[in-house]
């Protein structure tokens, strides 16, 4: 851990948008502190494009094997036609809108916990992927995107044997 990790605020520099949601109490505390400082320091400027509270923001998991990168996102209740997946040179973007199908909002609801709205998530890709062979499947409310690594990228990661001298 470098010194930078101990500094509780980041001045809204979010860095890489993917992060590990670790379970350790310290990382939770640190996250809490980060939020506290972020919220405090960003309280004075206007952020008109930020999503309102309660907006839908799906969570994303990224896993990797030697040959491919798999990105999964939880999008319950969405239709595949409302999901848009695009690839940039070094990032993957999942965009979409979870349509609010609720009839007469709020009035006769006893409980409103689910969230709706448009969202856009970008996942940085650390390796080169073959953009022609990307597959996206939507099953049971979970979007799975499989990105095969290019031969070059797969090659790059080779195990180096340790020799005894």
């Amino acid at each position, binding site marked *: 851990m470098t010194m930078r990790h101990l500094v509780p605020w980041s001045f809204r520099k979010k860095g890489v948008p993917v992060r590990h949601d670790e379970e350790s109490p310290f990382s939770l505390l640190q996250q809490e502190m980060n939020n506290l400082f972020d919220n405090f320091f960003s309280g004075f400027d206007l952020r008109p494009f930020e999503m309102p509270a309660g907006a839908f923001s799906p969570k994303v998991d*990224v896993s990797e094997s030697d040959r491919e990168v798999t990105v999964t996102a939880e999008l*319950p209740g969405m239709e595949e036609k409302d999901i848009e997946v695009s690839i940039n040179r070094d990032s993957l973007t999942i965009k979409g809108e979870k349509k609010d199908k609720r009839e007469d909002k709020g009035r006769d609801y006893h409980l409103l916990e689910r969230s709706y709205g448009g969202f856009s998530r970008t996942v940085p890709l650390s390796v080169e992927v073959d953009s022609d062979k990307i597959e996206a499947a*939507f099953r049971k*409310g979970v979007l799975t995107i499989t990105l095969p690594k290019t031969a070059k990228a797969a090659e790059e990661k080779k195990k180096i044997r340790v020799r005894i001298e």
Partner: protein
Amino acid sequence: MTDTVKEVQKKEAELQTGVERTRATRVYTPSVDILERKEDIVVTADMPGVDEKSVDITLEKNVLTIYGKVEPSIPENHRLVAAEYSVGDYQRVFTLSDEIDREGIQASVKNGELRLVLPKAEKMKTKKIEVKSEA
């Protein structure tokens, strides 16, 4: 603000004390919307990863339990590099009042969204009383 919202999206279920589980997975509380209509009550729950075969709905006395089994989604030979959510089962328990017509409960799952329709019992439906004008 948004962080508290995200927490609501997938919250780990509080299990009853003294209840032991046999499946070594996490259990989450799905977020639900409950709408009361004239004829019925509609419960919609977000349960990504659940289909009609893996959801279990039981009604015992007046306790309605929704249980959704989710199989781990990480393909073989993959290792997780970034995790914002983790996969687990879903459970939520509701206590129903006598107003529900138990025989007519309907459930359907589409795209990880469970929809339960609980029809109100005949006698509990809101009745509209017509006002007659007397000549």
